């Protein structure tokens, strides 16, 4: 694949993603003001040079809060996806390798989990784990993993149907070798694509949990908490809502553009290869 062939959507999405990650890393170490510093004299201050996104109902600097929250929100997106993949990939490989009744049994179980809407499933897990940023991350990771099992298993099955896998079985390769050395290297591209699309979703769902008060707990704030606080203040000022609302939307646009752009591009490269 030549460099010049990269889609605009991959470029734009990739740039937004990189920028969001840098923003989060920066925000982890440094913010222009202490995000928790209360100043009741400047409640709901409009944006100014010193405070480009204005201040919230406690006079806290919105940009600083947004930067501190970026880390929380992005770790939610990446962390939950990573967890979901580390559950989903091995299970899918195992099911696809075993086939037959083992595969059927695993897929029945997956079907059961899939028939609980994933946000609701995450809520159920949070009930047993308790509310915190980390628990929301774990809950989302577990709740989205059945979807990964289903998607990746289909890909695994397609790959397993190739003769090189049959050849490996026939010459007596171990189950682990076939799953991780023959099959896995061939299914990385779709896994990465599904993963990057899921980062956007997990970021969104994680923020939603915080919005509901079931994720990150105040005074710490991720973008979901900020949106909730912003909504509660809309009768006084729209700035505390607008900042986080726009930031989170742009970040998710970035992840979606990147993931789907990559998917389209790979699909097109395949078509070219086939003439």
């Amino acid at each position, binding site marked *: 694949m030549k460099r010049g062939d990269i889609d605009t959507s991959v470029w734009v999405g990739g740039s937004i993603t990189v920028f969001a990650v840098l923003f989060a890393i920066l925000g982890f170490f440094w913010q222009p003001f202490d995000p928790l510093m209360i100043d009741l004299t400047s409640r709901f201050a409009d944006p100014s040079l010193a405070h480009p996104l204005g201040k919230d109902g406690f006079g806290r600097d919105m940009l600083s809060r947004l930067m501190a929250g970026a880390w929380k929100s992005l770790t939610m997106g990446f962390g939950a996806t990573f967890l979901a993949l580390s559950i989903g990939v091995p299970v899918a490989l195992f099911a696809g390798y075993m086939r037959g009744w083992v595969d059927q049994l695993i897929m029945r*179980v997956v*079907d*059961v*989990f*899939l*028939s*609980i*809407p*994933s*946000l*609701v499933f995450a*809520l*159920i*897990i*949070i*009930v*047993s784990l308790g509310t915190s940023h980390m628990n929301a991350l774990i809950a989302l990771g577990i709740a989205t993993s059945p979807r990964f099992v289903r998607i990746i298993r289909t890909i695994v099955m397609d790959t397993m149907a190739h003769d090189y896998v049959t050849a490996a079985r026939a010459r007596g390769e171990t189950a682990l070798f076939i799953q991780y050395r023959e099959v896995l290297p061939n299914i990385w591209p779709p896994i990465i694509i599904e993963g990057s699309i899921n980062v*956007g979703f997990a970021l*969104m*769902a994680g*923020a*939603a949990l915080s*919005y*509901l*008060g*079931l994720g990150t707990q105040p005074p710490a704030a991720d973008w*979901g908490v900020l*949106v*909730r606080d*912003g*909504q509660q203040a*809309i*009768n006084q000022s*729209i700035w505390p*809502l607008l900042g*986080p*609302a726009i930031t*989170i*939307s742009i970040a*998710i*646009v970035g992840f*979606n*553009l990147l993931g789907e752009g990559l998917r389209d591009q790979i699909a097109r490269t395949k078509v070219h290869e086939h003439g």
Partner: protein
Amino acid sequence: MLAKIISRSVTGLFTLLMVSLVIFVSTQFLPGDAAVTLLGDNATEEALSHLREELGLNEPAVTQYLRWVGGIVQGDFGVSQTLGLPIGTILGDRFIASLQLTILTILVAAIVAIPLGVLSAIGQGSTIDRTVLSISYLGISIPDFVFGPLLIVAFALPPLALLPSSGYVPLSDDPLAWLRHMILPVTALTAVLTAHLVRQTRSGMLEVLKSDYVRTARLKGLPERQVLWRHCLRNGLATTLTVLALDLGFVMGSIVVIEEVFAYPGIGRLTVFAIGDRDIPLIQATTLVIAATFVVANILADIAHSMLNPKLE
């Protein structure tokens, strides 16, 4: 067809039973003592053990589960710990309110998304296609809990102040007020769903347009309009239907959030309330009802799908 319906219903029932098990296991046996949670740390040991007895917490897990499921089969969801009321009486109205929201959302999304997706696929690469695609990108990327408050700012607050920002009025009380209360939540819910559905319809149609049988139809000399209506739509929509059923799961998740945004008295908001207060019987009941709705909808979609696709029948 009848065999298909029966077999699908049996699997659905089995799935639901398993779902109930998942819900029960992950909510019933929590770290910590439910009785302490309810009565507080200062409760006497006597009061605690009395409550444990009353809640059946001392019985074996299997007995607890069987009694819970048995109760639900007879319409008894147990008693809410915080509200002190039988859950069945709370659930009914809330469920109906949420169901209205869901059905409206799906209808609106389908009516908007399917024609747009088809148009976009037919004119692949055209201005219409690119506009639809870009807008749908925004649609799938703006989270519901962000879009909802933004809608409130735009339409419920001055200067426009056209619509109520929260609440619910039953349809039978005042149809106009009912509609006014529905518009914003449904719009917020529809945004993501429509966007996703447009994209799926588009790619499903593109797949069909590329197929060999569409080539056959064109090389028969059929005009493009006839190729589309007779050969593409039916096959393309079969995919859309499957997607719609799966998306429903996403909508049910969104409902929890959107009901919170618009203070809409539905089952989603009840769930959040129950989790906040750790009202375990209520959590179990609401999540089960949500999951059950999803399962039933999937069965219906499955049956409809096999009607569209003779190969599956």
